[in-house]
């Protein structure tokens, strides 16, 4: 025999249809939505996983600063056991609204294109563009796009797996499918487009696929290490080759220079020599014989008479002549002074030969005698020997002497540029303080050599122009810089497992899935408690029956099951129908949401047991557990107590005494409050759950607005220039700063880009003092990473392994980006930059004197608030759904629980009617307290919502998403939530007033609840 109690179910459903239909519809809708969401999510995940091979998705990509040669690529590929695929792209602005298109060639090897409409570009002036970008910008097949002044016809709408989510940069917090898109040209179209903005991007695929993210990470880390080494080796070789070439050239020039100096030296020496001879002769000829005699006498330290005697002896006079001479002297015919002259006459020699004779007679060398004589002559002319030579050379004594002095040093100086010993240094980046140091190796001092030439030039005795030309060449070689543009750098490196453009769809889906399921279970628990409370009131109402049944032999288990059946059946059927709808109806909605947010390939829906488990079995289990616990506890009271209506588990009903001074109505209401505490508790929890959904659903709009204001308020300067080179500006407003980007290393969070600023000590723009040896941390970084003053933060190079540790010295309010600020001097020291290094300017006015080629970027407010715009564009639709769901939950809870309070008091209400209370008064008695509970719950929810959402921000948004958005809930959101709650309650209250009015007075006269 079937348990006759079972027949109650359909009757119970009929008699309380409002409650059950409301809960049932809510469950069907809610579980349907959740199940649809899961089915879609799982289908997307399945399609994604299958798509990895179907669309040959890259394992990562790398962008080089210049086109690498094959050798380099092969080396990287070989060391890491992977294959590279050329995926060069050109990034072009289109339209007037800073839209960027990343333009590729049609692909046939990797990251294959899915066509959603039309066809790929075939002619040079055709283009296929990303479907989402096209949708967001109203672009259709057949439309024209102008890129770099050329018109292209859109031939197709596409999606590619490497831009399933349109992240322009992996460090963007949110994707942006409004201002950023990808496009595809034909081979010809691509090659005809200017290379000015081409990026040298290569996708890679490992030859052996990895199993999971851990292995992917290991492979990627190994690749970074090997990349660092290979590229260093490559760049070193580049620098070495350039240095060698420079040295070879310098060596050749030096050889020429040496020859030129040798030539110059011999020419000049010759000239001096000749001039000296000529000047000497000229000088000596100006001396009288007497002067010559005296001079030689003085130099030879022989007396003049002695000298004369010796000279006469040298004249070779015959004895007769000598006798004649002596006779002339003795007879007084000639004086002693005339002795030499007479002897000369007798010898028949000329006076001009006399000087030579003197010299011979003196025993001096010709040079010594000449020297003495020239000096004498110079003295006579009031000058020096150099003066005589200078004069002979046509210059002045000073210039001539300086030239002579300079030449003495010349030899030493030329040793420096000695071509024999000139060897190019071996370039090793590890041993250089900075990569620029190789230039210092050739830093010879050519200025001194130039000075020598100047001195030669001052004398005018030699034309130095050829030497100068060689020197100039050498100088030019010395000053020539190593061509950095030949050095290869990694501009971007992104393994697939970190690539948000590929993975965000799946990550977001799983994150959303967890969040959605948590919400589902919380709401199911709320509904379960609601059931439990209403059932528990039914049990109270049916206490006598239960007591009788128990006394007659019905077991507690039978009755527990009996009271559990309806909630469970309703939940089960609701969940089943919800699941069916979730598979058949809602996925189309979610498909739309997916296609609205993501640029994914078309996908089929797959039913998965997981969706069924999560949206049917688990909610059912929650319902079972909650309802079972509450009902079995309620039914554990002894049969006799049921019969006596003593439903308190312990002791007798206690009546709380209320002071009689309190007005009657207030006491009455207080009693209703006490009577319905479980209902009100559930109402409170439910209101909190609904309110949190309502606030969460409405918080992002105002948050984005507030954040934009904050960004504006806390910006460093109106204009923040980032330069390509260290160019100076005349603008006095401008202040130099340095910036570089490092990555966070805290494993708890996803990797974030941190802007590291080097700020002048007396900065006008960052006025807060930066304590020595520490950094100021932007408030976002501080908040997101939960930092305190004194903490150490470790950051690493984005594409390298070098780590830097900084000490937090304070917080700096700068909302635009996660940043740290350090003194410029410390920055230069930390990053090994020259003292005059800087990367940009802060300025309150535009720097009009900078060449546009020197400006890499100007950051303005619009750039800073970009994240807010992105967030706004992608979260809008989803958020309104939350608000809607919140409102429905408000209505459901308020309806069922308020109705429950009224029903519990049906008899009393009927009695008050009999006593003469008006409907309004009864309403005040029974509804006012519920109204107060509703309003109090709404207000009390506010701090709890704040705690819950703050927790959610910290534990989910901050750890799972890169970038930063502050946690701000505008008061408007709370006000809106309260209004929503009050309006929902008002609707319910009006309905309940009708219900109260309909309660017949006869209810009061029944001796038991029937």
């Amino acid at each position, binding site marked *: 025999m079937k348990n006759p109690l079972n027949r109650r179910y359909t*009757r119970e459903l009929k008699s309380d249809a409002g409650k059950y239909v409301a809960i049932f519809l809510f469950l069907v809708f809610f579980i349907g939505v959740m199940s649809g969401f899961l089915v879609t999510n799982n289908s997307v995940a399945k399609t994604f996983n299958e798509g990895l091979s179907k669309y040959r998705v890259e394992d990562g990509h790398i962008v080089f600063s210049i086109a690498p040669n094959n050798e380099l690529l092969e080396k990287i590929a070989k060391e890491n056991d992977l294959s590279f695929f050329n995926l060069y792209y050109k990034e072009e602005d289109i339209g007037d609204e800073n839209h960027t298109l990343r333009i590729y060639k049609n692909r046939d090897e990797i990251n294959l294109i899915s066509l959603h409409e039309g066809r790929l570009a075939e002619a040079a002036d055709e283009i296929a563009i990303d479907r989402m970008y096209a949708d967001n910008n109203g672009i259709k097949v057949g439309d024209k796009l102008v890129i770099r002044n050329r018109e292209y016809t859109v031939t197709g709408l596409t999606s590619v797996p490497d831009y399933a989510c349109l992240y322009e940069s992996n460090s963007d917090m949110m994707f942006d499918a409004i201002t950023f898109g990808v496009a595809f040209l034909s081979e010809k179209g691509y090659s005809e487009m200017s290379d000015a903005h081409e990026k040298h991007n290569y996708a890679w695929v490992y030859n052996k696929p990895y199993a999971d993210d851990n292995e992917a990470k290991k492979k990627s880390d190994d690749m970074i290490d090997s990349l660092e080494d290979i590229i260093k080796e490559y760049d070193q070789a580049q620098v070495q080759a350039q240095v060698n070439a420079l040295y070879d050239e310098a060596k050749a020039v030096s050889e020429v220079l040496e020859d030129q100096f040798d030539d110059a030296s011999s020419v000049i020496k010759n000239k001096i020599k000749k001039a000296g001879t000529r000047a000497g002769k000229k000088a000596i000829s100006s001396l009288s014989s007497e002067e010559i005699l005296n001079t030689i006498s003085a130099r030879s330290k022989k007396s003049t008479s002695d000298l004369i005697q010796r000279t006469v002896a040298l004249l070779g006079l015959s004895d007769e002549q000598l006798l004649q001479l002596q006779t002339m002297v003795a007879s007084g015919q000639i004086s002693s002074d005339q002795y030499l002259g007479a002897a000369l006459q007798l010898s028949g020699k000329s006076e001009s030969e006399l000087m030579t004779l003197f010299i011979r007679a003196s025993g001096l060398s010709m040079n010594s005698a000449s020297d003495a004589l020239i000096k004498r002559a110079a003295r006579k002319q009031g000058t020096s020997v150099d003066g005589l030579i200078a004069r002979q050379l046509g210059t002045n004594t000073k210039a001539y002497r300086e030239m002579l002095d300079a030449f003495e040093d010349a030899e030493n100086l030329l040793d420096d540029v000695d071509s024999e010993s000139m060897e190019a240094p071996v370039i090793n980046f590890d041993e250089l303080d900075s990569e620029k140091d190789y230039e210092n190796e050739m830093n010879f001092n050519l200025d001194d050599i130039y000075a020598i030439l100047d001195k030669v030039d001052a004398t005018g005795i030699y034309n130095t122009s050829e030497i100068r030309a060689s020197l100039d060449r050498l100088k030019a070689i010395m000053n020539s810089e190593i061509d950095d543009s030949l050095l290869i750098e990694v501009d971007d490196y992104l393994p697939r497992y970190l690539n948000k453009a590929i993975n965000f769809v799946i990550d977001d889906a799983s994150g959303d899935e967890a969040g959605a399921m948590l919400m589902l279970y919380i709401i199911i628990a709320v509904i379960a408690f609601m059931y439990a409370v209403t059932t528990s009131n039914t049990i109270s109402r*049916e206490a006598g029956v239960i007591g*009788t049944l128990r006394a*007659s032999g019905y077991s507690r288990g039978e009755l527990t099951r009996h009271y559990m059946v309806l909630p469970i059946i309703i939940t089960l059927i609701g969940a089943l129908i919800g699941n069916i709808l979730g598979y058949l109806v809602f996925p189309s909605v979610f498909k739309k949401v997916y296609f609205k947010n993501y640029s994914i390939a078309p996908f089929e829906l797959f039913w998965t047991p997981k969706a069924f488990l999560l949206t049917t079995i688990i909610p059912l289990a929650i319902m079972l557990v909650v309802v079972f616990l509450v009902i079995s506890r309620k039914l554990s009271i002894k049969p006799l107590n049921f019969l006596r209506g003593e439903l308190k588990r312990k002791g007798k009903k206690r009546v709380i005494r209320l002071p009689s001074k309190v007005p009657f109505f207030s006491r009455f209401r207080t009693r209703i409050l006490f009577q319905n505490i479980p209902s009100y508790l559930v109402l409170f929890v439910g209101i909190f759950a609904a309110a949190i959904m309502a606030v969460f659903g409405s918080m992002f709009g105002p948050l984005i607005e507030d954040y934009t204001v904050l960004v504006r308020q806390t910006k460093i300067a109106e204009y923040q220039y980032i330069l390509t080179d260290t160019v100076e500006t005349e603008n006095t407003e401008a202040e130099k700063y340095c910036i570089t980007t490092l990555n966070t290393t805290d494993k708890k969070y996803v990797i974030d880009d941190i802007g590291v600023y080097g700020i002048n000590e007396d900065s006008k723009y960052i006025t807060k003092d930066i304590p020595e040896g520490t950094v100021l941390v932007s408030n976002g970084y501080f908040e997101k990473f939960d930092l305190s003053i004194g903490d150490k933060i470790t950051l690493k190079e984005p594409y390298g392994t070098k780590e830097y540790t900084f000490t937090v010295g304070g917080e700096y309010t700068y909302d635009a980006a996660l940043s740290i600020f350090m003194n410029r001097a410390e920055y230069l020291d930390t990053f090994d930059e020259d003292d005059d290094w800087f990367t940009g300017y802060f300025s309150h006015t535009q720097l009009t004197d900078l060449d546009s080629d020197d400006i890499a970027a100007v950051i303005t407010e619009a750039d800073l608030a970009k994240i807010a715009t992105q967030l706004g564009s992608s979260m809008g639709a989803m958020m309104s759904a939350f608000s809607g769901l919140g409102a429905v939950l408000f209505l459901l809870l308020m309806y069922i629980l308020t109705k429950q309070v009224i029903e519990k008091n049906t008899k009393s209400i009927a009695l008050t009617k009999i006593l003469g209370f008006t409907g309004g008064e009864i309403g005040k008695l029974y509804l006012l307290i519920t109204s107060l509970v509703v309003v109090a719950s709404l207000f009390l929810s506010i701090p709890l919502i704040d705690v819950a959402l703050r927790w959610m921000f910290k534990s989910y948004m901050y750890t799972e998403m890169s970038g930063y958005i502050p946690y701000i809930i505008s008061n408007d959101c709370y006000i809106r939530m309260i209004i929503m709650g009050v309006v929902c309650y008002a609707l319910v209250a009006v309905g309940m007033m009708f219900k109260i009015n309909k309660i017949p007075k006869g209810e009061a006269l029944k001796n038991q609840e*029937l």
Partner: protein
Amino acid sequence: MSFVKIKDINKHFGQGDSYVDALSDINMDIEKGQIIVLLGPSGSGKSTLLNIIGGIEDADSGYIAIDGEKIEDMNEKKLTQYRRKHLGYVFQMYNLIPNLTVRENIEVGAYLGKNALNVDELMDTLGISGQKNKIPSQLSGGQQQRTSIGRAIVKNPDILLCDEPTGALDYVTSKEILKLIEDINKKYGSTIIIVTHNDAIKNMADKVYKLRDGKIVSEYTNESKTPAAELEW
């Protein structure tokens, strides 16, 4: 050995100043098929005794054995089985299930018994066949009590416990109900224990126990029973 043996039952309520002996040294021997009336004023302990016999209240000491089976040692599960197997309960308040019909309310009892009586026949016996599809709120008090008796008796219990079965009924209806109880006793041979404060009812009993202040003040066997229909008060 008697069918129901009640031996040295004691029961108190409260502690300290509010300590009350609800039952003191109660001993009874009830034979199968007898109608027993427990008579006494309010607070005499008669309902407490009935509840202890019914296994829905514990005694402080003493025991009750039904057909030799003691109920003092039973856990809740066994007690439930005991009640299911042996007992039918009728209360002053009918405690019918409001959204089940008369027939269904009786079936609720039938479901518990292995050898349940034929419901339709029973309804005929109870005189409520005409109301079988009505729900309790459509019935008079007497009809509700008949239904309640039907629910108790349908499972063919060994003992029918009736706690003030006519307490909420008028004279005529009360007599009808008492007659019904008498008929059931005759027809099904059920042992029936009736708790009442109505002195007149004692005359239809095979055996009468008078209680006052928790004690049996007198007990006697009716040598000549008065049929219920002839009772007057």
